[in-house]
């Protein structure tokens, strides 16, 4: 007996059922429910547990087969909540099918608001197996039927999508006989087809389907033999599947901007890296030389936090900032939160970037090989048993060819990096489990010939070397304990190593093992109230050695003729940050989606103990209250806003002191934002935000520090950032995708607002210590980025990016005074610090890609043309030796970059 699952026909939202429910409770709500357009689904339900119905005995006895067409309603938890027979196959078959269906378990469908109830049509088939049929031969009645038993299958095979080897389900397959007549069938869920009794001789096997290139094959049918033929259909445009953008889900992070990986990997200038595209979004400043520095809403790069699946990592890019440390093949999406994010994220004044790795169980195994001008990587994603598996590794080879360009000079520079990722995950009906281990190492060696002086300082001679390595491993469980209660538990361990050797007397060696634990519980206490409580615990042991060629006293009382004595600093201790947060989701109106409030509070702790001291260096905490809200003014228009406090503990090196406490407080940001989101159509949406941020307690150098026992840093700086962000986005619902992103902003700092300029020890006009407001180093008034891509037939795509950015501020200098002892000109600024600006940055990048599809594999190739208009784009101001001449370090020249990715599905 075989129960044959025919197909999952379609999914739609059960508006009628909802309406009925509403009628029972509230007539007013019924009206709303009737009027509200269902949101498009972003995820179809998936059958997780199929239950086989017992074959009704009478039907079996009567050799009766049939298909029951059912209407199934699946609730938000994925459970079957309603079953109705649409097309009967007989009462007994109907009843068996319905009873079995009630025990099906699905993954819930999702729309923009998250899990949502849906209705699907489901064909439940009853087919007698061969044995049962053979056994029936003895039956008299069957004897009559046996004469009607179909002829044996003599032409069969599989219909697969070319390149991906994906079975094509419910596709027509046609046999055209020599007399012009045709036989037709459809493929099953495994892509299999079969014909019975095809006449002997030559026939033509055909298949065609919209969006696929028709195929046909001549086949010779031989008597009493079964012919197996595998047919391949080539998709006219494979990218259509990829161009499904992820709709933004309303969440407590009101400025969340999520892009699909396949959308963002096609942005020019990203080297195919999914993370780098955030630099084309509002709020992100252009980084010098395309280096990928995260300067978000005028914050320092170190003030923005980077996470992988909620686990904080120290850096997101490899050397130079051109490639992220996570292979794009493992990335499902990148959450970019420039501000107003929820209390789930903390310890940062700037923005947040959270890289989300894959969580869907792959339907097929996939191996890929990716090569470009910087590195080569391989990855595997697939399914082993019930688990999804992803493995990836990458190694750069820039270090192998750079020596060919520098061999005549004797100078060598060898940057290299590698990274690796291994992830295992599983989905159950009530939760998920995943284990992920990843890490990277960046090494840079720069050397000069032994007889070449690197300046006059004997301590500055020698080779430069740096190693930065980081490893992380986490386990993560999510579980829906009940319909209204879910939990998350995510312990992780990590190890960070930093070694920097300047070749002379300057060397840093630091090792930091880290444990991070995130635990979170969410209760839906009422339709209108959901509460989330969480703990974000981080503990790390530090062990560092810093070798300096001179003491702090020497630096404070600088005299080049004075004798220098090397100084070694050693620190070994423990830092802990047991943060806690609580966040609510309040839906105060009867239309629950109309107005959502997200009040929350986070308590951030910082405790740093040095093992060599009796008292903690720092033991303090701060409280971050935040309130975000969304209000739907229509089905396609929404207002949003947020206010909150964002605090950031001092950096470990700022907190450390040889003796005594540092008494440093948290840096604070008071943030406010208001915005409007509007969806003009399925394809076009816009998002505009106005934001302001006041920074206090910023940690700055202590101008009064004279000796190594003095405090090096103090909480005296203040800052202010304000501006507007706009994005107009064309969703990738057809061949076009793209967005226009514009940021208007101003970011300023004042390091010593409460000091009299005259009292500031190094109060030099034009320096940040002058006691007045100055422009932040990467303040960019206008940042305009336009990205567009078009997918042509035959898997050919072209995309482009135009960037216009105000030049960075700089401080002008004039002819210096000559220090005869050091053979060095000391210059004097002719204006205030950062009082002038570089010329604007204008660049156009173009990318062309082409996907070649073969039966067993695919090859994607691309060429990235950076700075095609060959703009000079000054990045930094430089002067000659005595500051009588000025010039610029220009931006990247015209660079053609190319790469390919080969994919094999099996």
């Amino acid at each position, binding site marked *: 007996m075989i129960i044959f699952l025919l197909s999952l026909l379609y999914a739609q939202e059960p508006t009628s059922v909802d309406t009925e429910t509403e009628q029972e409770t509230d007539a007013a709500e019924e009206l709303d429910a009737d009027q509200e357009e269902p949101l498009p689904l972003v995820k179809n339900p998936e059958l997780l547990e199929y239950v086989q119905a017992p074959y009704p005995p009478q039907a079996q006895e009567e050799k009766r087969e049939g298909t029951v067409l059912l209407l199934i309603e699946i609730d938000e938890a994925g459970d079957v909540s309603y079953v109705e027979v649409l097309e009967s196959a007989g009462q007994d078959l109907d009843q068996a099918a319905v009873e079995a269906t009630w025990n099906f378990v699905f993954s819930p469908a999702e729309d923009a608001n998250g899990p949502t109830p849906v209705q699907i049509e489901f064909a439940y088939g009853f087919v007698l197996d061969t044995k049962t049929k053979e056994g029936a031969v003895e039956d008299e009645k069957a004897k009559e039927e046996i004469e009607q038993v179909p002829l044996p299958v003599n032409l069969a095979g599989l219909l697969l999508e070319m390149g991906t080897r994906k079975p094509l389900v419910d596709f027509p397959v046609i046999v055209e006989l020599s007399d012009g007549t045709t036989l037709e069938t459809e493929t099953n869920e495994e892509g299999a087809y079969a014909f019975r009794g095809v006449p002997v001789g030559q026939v033509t096997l055909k298949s065609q389907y919209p969006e696929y290139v028709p195929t046909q094959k001549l086949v010779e049918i031989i008597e009493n033999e079964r012919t197996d033929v595998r047919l391949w259909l080539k998709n006219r445009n494979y990218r259509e599947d990829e161009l499904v953008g992820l709709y933004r889900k309303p969440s407590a992070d009101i400025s969340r901007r999520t892009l699909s990986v396949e959308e963002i990997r096609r942005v020019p200038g990203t080297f195919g890296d999914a993370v780098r595209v955030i630099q084309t979004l509002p709020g992100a400043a252009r980084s010098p030389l395309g280096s990928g520095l995260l300067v978000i809403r005028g914050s320092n790069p170190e003030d923005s936090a980077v996470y992988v699946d909620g686990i904080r990592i120290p850096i997101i890019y490899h050397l*130079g900032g051109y490639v992220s440390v996570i292979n794009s093949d493992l990335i499902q999406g990148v959450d970019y939160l420039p501000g107003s994010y929820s209390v789930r994220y903390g310890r940062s004044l700037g923005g947040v970037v959270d890289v989300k790795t894959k969580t869907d169980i792959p339907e097929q195994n996939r191996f890929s090989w990716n090569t470009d001008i910087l590195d080569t990587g391989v990855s595997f994603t697939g399914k082993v048993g019930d688990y999804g598996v992803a493995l990836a590794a990458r190694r750069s080879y820039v270090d192998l060819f750079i020596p060919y360009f520098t061999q005549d000079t004797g100078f060598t520079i060898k940057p290299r990096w590698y990274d690796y990722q291994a992830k295992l995950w599983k989905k159950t009906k009530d939760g998920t489990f995943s284990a992920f281990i990843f890490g990277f190492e960046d090494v840079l060696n720069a050397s000069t010939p032994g*007889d070449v002086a690197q300046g006059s300082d004997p301590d500055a001679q020698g080779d430069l070397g740096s190693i930065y390595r980081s490893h992380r491993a986490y386990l993560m469980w999510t579980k829906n304990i009940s319909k209204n209660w879910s939990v998350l538990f995510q312990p992780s361990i990590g190890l960070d190593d930093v070694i920097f050797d300047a070749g002379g007397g300057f060397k840093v060696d630091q090792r930091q093992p880290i444990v991070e634990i995130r635990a979170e519980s969410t209760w839906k206490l009422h339709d209108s109230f959901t509460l989330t409580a969480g703990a974000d615990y981080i503990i790390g042991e530090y062990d560092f050695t810093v070798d300096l060629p001179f003491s702090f006293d020497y630096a404070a009382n600088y005299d080049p*003729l004075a004798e220098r004595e090397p100084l070694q600093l050693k620190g070994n201790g423990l830092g802990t940050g047991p943060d806690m947060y609580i966040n609510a989701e309040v839906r105060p109106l009867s239309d629950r989606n109309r107005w959502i409030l997200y009040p929350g509070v986070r308590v951030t702790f910082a405790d740093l103990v040095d093992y060599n001291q009796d008292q903690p260096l720092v033991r303090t905490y701060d409280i971050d209250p935040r309130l975000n809200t969304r209000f739907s003014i229509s089905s396609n228009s929404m207002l949003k806003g947020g206010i909150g406090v964002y605090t950031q503990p001092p950096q470990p090196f700022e907190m450390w002191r040889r003796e005594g406490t540092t008494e440093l407080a948290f840096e604070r940001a008071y943030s406010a934002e208001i915005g409007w989101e509007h969806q003009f159509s399925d394809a076009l949406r816009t998002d505009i935000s106005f934001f302001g941020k006041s920074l206090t307690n910023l940690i700055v150098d202590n101008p009064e520090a004279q000796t190594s026992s003095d405090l090096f840093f103090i909480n005296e700086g203040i800052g202010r950032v304000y501006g507007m962000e706009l994005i107009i986005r064309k969703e990738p619902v057809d061949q076009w995708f793209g967005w226009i992103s514009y940021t208007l902003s101003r970011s300023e700092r004042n390091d010593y607002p409460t000091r009299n300029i005259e009292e500031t020890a190094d109060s030099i006009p034009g320096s940040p210590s002058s006691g007045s407001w100055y422009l932040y180093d990467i303040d960019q008034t206008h940042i305009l980025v336009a990205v567009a891509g078009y997918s042509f037939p035959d898997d050919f795509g072209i995309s482009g990016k135009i960037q216009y950015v105000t030049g960075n501020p700089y401080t002008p200098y004039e002819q210096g005074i000559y220090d005869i002892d050091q053979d060095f000109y*000391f210059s004097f600024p002719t204006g205030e610090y950062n009082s002038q600006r570089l010329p604007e940055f204008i660049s156009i990048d173009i990318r062309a890609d082409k996907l070649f599809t073969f039966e067993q594999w695919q090859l994607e190739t691309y060429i990235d043309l950076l700075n095609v208009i060959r703009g000079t784009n000054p990045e930094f101001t430089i002067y000659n*030796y005595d500051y009588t001449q000025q010039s610029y370090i220009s931006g990247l020249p015209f660079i053609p970059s190319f790469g390919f990715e080969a994919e094999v599905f099996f």
Partner: protein
Amino acid sequence: MNIFLLLSCTQDELSQNWQLDRTRILGAQAEPPEAKPGDIVQFRSLVFSPDSIESVVWFACLPDGATSFGCTIDPSLLEGLQEGDSPDITALIDAGFAGAEPAFSPTWTVPEDALNGLSDAQKNDGLSAFVTVSAIPADATEESDFEVAYKRFPISTSDTPNHNPIIDQISINDIPYSSQEVFIATAGETYTLNPIFDEIHVETYSFLNREGDLEDRIEEPYFSWFTEGGAFDQPISLYPSSSVEWTAPPNPYSGRIITIMRDRRGGMAWSWIQVEVQL
């Protein structure tokens, strides 16, 4: 370090430190380079100028009369000297006027109380006095036309006071040349230049370290190279790898190649060779 920095470039070529194309103070020597209170210190300068220099004016001062950039001088004093007015001698002396080459050989007597208030160990380490040197071109019309430099010179009671080094000659491709000789170079050719000096000028001296122990240290001198024509592969060479490569200009040229030796303790010496580049 940015990989693509290798691919980026400057918009314009900037003049190099070794290029002599305007009035510059290249060296200033104090003799003795490390004086005791009461000593008379004599100064001399090495100034390059494509035009004539009217005078090189010296001011000396103790640290309490100086900023980080040399002695504090009222600019009107220098302007007065330039304009040929009768200088206010008292004001000049109060400001630390030490002399004006070539007419008044600059000298300065270290005040007897220069180290008062310091401990014996601090007196042994000493402190740095300053000289400010102003080269006034003959055609200077305003203060910004002056070339100004400053130098420190230690005042201490050290038993091993510093001495100025002496460069005997400069060798070109291992052949020594004196400053009176003219080296004939071929246009575009590259030559190896090496300063020749007695190793005795790389002094060993004692230093009281942080732990209070006397520590012997050896000087680590370096050489700065200058020329009006041609190019160096590096503007600085470090002892003992003191040589540099000089490539003669592509066209005929006659001028000097100068090297300045600094011992990092305030001691300084210089030497040059005459070169004539022929096709």
